[in-house]
């Protein structure tokens, strides 16, 4: 049987924590801090727009690139909020979430053997999709720099002659983001070595302490940037699967070629709902952001008190906390916490090699849940902990 599966797919490493995920999914009444999506339901007016579009009979394909109305809304929104100019005609493509946009980006630019730099820890799909596209992922361990990529660290990897680099800020799983000043320094290296920057900025709207700077807004960077974003995290629309990619005409045309054959177009219902999100959803985004920010402060204080060391995240809704002090590795910690206290977290090993001492804690959960989870973790640490 094995012979019928392609060599490429056979070579893909299965996620080491799949079994742990199954364990969580098979358990009832778990308080989960292991979720990578908002705990809010999509605001009603956005859901209603989707329903209304169905009632009105919008059930057909749209153009491959996506509804013009949506591309225009995105174009205006980016211009208004960031001064970023992308033409709705040929510089924006609507994708099935950032996931598809990311896959298309790689497939559009990677030749067999091209090297792609991936700061680590990072989102789970970056490495495998790079390999699937024929590229070679080269991981940059950012642990010693507080999970931050620096120009100096990046420069050290230039002897590999990489073609592209993946940026993700605010980052999943660390919550780390970059100020404009920090990005400028990284940009210098990227431009100097003529890399393409694939910038996954899906958590941009959830940046708490400073303004988010899209990589493409840095001077000279736009033509070398593939800008990925979407509606999932800001507007609590994960299940709608709608994102977008912006780039030069050439890149968008190349990506559209693949997209038209594999996807055809994103669900029209989701696109209609996304239009509404841009038009009327900002108030909800701001309200959700304030709520996340308050939870972040609450959790940061409490995690430190419990001795789960972590840096304070700039954005997203995750803490990447060290469990080293407990004497347990990440997977054992997560497994025992689940079995003994019914609290789920994600072992850091999911996000790259060398993170056996870390867990990802999501605060996309109600304050009551967070409190109860913290109570249980506290009992676990004082009574369970090391070997007990």
């Amino acid at each position: 049987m094995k012979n019928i599966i392609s060599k490429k797919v056979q070579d893909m490493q299965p996620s080491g924590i799949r079994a742990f995920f199954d364990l969580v999914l098979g358990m009832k009444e778990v308080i989960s801090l292991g979720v990578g999506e908002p705990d809010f339901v999509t605001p009603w007016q956005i859901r209603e727009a989707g329903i209304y579009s169905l009632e009105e009979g919008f059930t057909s394909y749209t153009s491959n690139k996506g509804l013009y109305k949506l591309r225009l809304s995105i174009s205006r929104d980016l211009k208004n909020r960031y001064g970023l100019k992308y033409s709705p005609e040929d510089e924006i493509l609507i994708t099935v979430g950032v996931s598809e946009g990311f896959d298309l980006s790689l497939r559009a630019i990677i030749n067999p053997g091209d090297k792609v730099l991936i700061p680590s820890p990072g989102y789970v799909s970056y490495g495998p999709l790079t390999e699937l596209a024929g590229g070679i992922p080269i991981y940059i361990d950012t642990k010693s720099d507080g999970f931050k990529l620096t120009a100096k660290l990046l420069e050290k990897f230039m002897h590999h002659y990489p073609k592209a680099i993946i940026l993700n800020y605010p980052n999943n799983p660390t919550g780390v983001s970059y100020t404009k000043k920090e990005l400028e320094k990284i940009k210098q290296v990227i431009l100097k070595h003529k890399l393409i920057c694939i910038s996954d900025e899906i958590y941009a709207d959830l940046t708490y302490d400073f303004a988010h700077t899209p990589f493409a807004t840095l001077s000279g960077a736009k033509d070398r940037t593939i800008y990925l974003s979407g509606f999932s995290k800001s507007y609590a629309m994960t299940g709608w699967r709608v994102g977008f990619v912006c780039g030069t005409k050439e890149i968008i045309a190349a990506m559209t070629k693949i997209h038209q054959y594999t996807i055809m177009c994103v669900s029209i219902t989701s696109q209609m709902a996304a239009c509404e999100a841009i038009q009327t959803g900002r108030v909800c985004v701001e309200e959700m952001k304030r709520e996340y920010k308050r939870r972040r402060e609450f959790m940061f204080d409490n995690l430190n008190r419990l001795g789960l060391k972590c840096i304070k995240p700039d954005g997203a809704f995750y803490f990447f906390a060290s469990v080293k002090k407990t004497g347990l590795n990440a997977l054992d910690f997560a497994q025992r916490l689940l079995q003994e206290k019914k609290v789920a977290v994600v072992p850091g090993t999911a996000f790259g090699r060398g993170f056996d001492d870390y867990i990802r804690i999501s605060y996309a959960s109600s304050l009551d849940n967070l409190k109860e989870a913290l109570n249980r973790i506290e009992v676990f640490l004082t009574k369970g902990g090391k070997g007990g």
Partner: protein
Amino acid sequence: MDEILEILEKDGRTPVEDIAKMLKKKPQKIKEAIKKYEKEGAILKYKAVINKELIRDANSEVRALIEVNIIPQKDVGFDKIAERLYSFAEVSSCYLVSGTYDLLLIIEGKDLRTVSRFVAEKLAPMENIRGTVTHFLLKKYKEDGIILKHKEENKRIAISY
């Protein structure tokens, strides 16, 4: 609006220590701010929001919206009459509104008769009142931003990247 108020409006029982942590301030500062709001009357009181549909002995409570048409008085306009009306214990809310009538009252009583009697004996005969229209409330779906439904089940999968 101050975030302290936003938090308390959602959950009036949030402990001061939690608010302090969430807003990165000293508990004492939060305590003082809340005291100030209470003193100024910005925070009037803390109460439980009860879904009376689920409470048997409260089910007999009857509520009605009453549109009231009035003749305004010299110098004091609608205020004086409004005051006479909202001072009745049966009146739980009282608003001056634009449109075809002037005051909107929400009346609460233990049964239909109590409410009817209030309208017939207290309200209607009052001087300066031109007319009233009474709407008895049949079912409550949402009140003050809270949807009156059983808690919704969790629809997210328990773990994801």
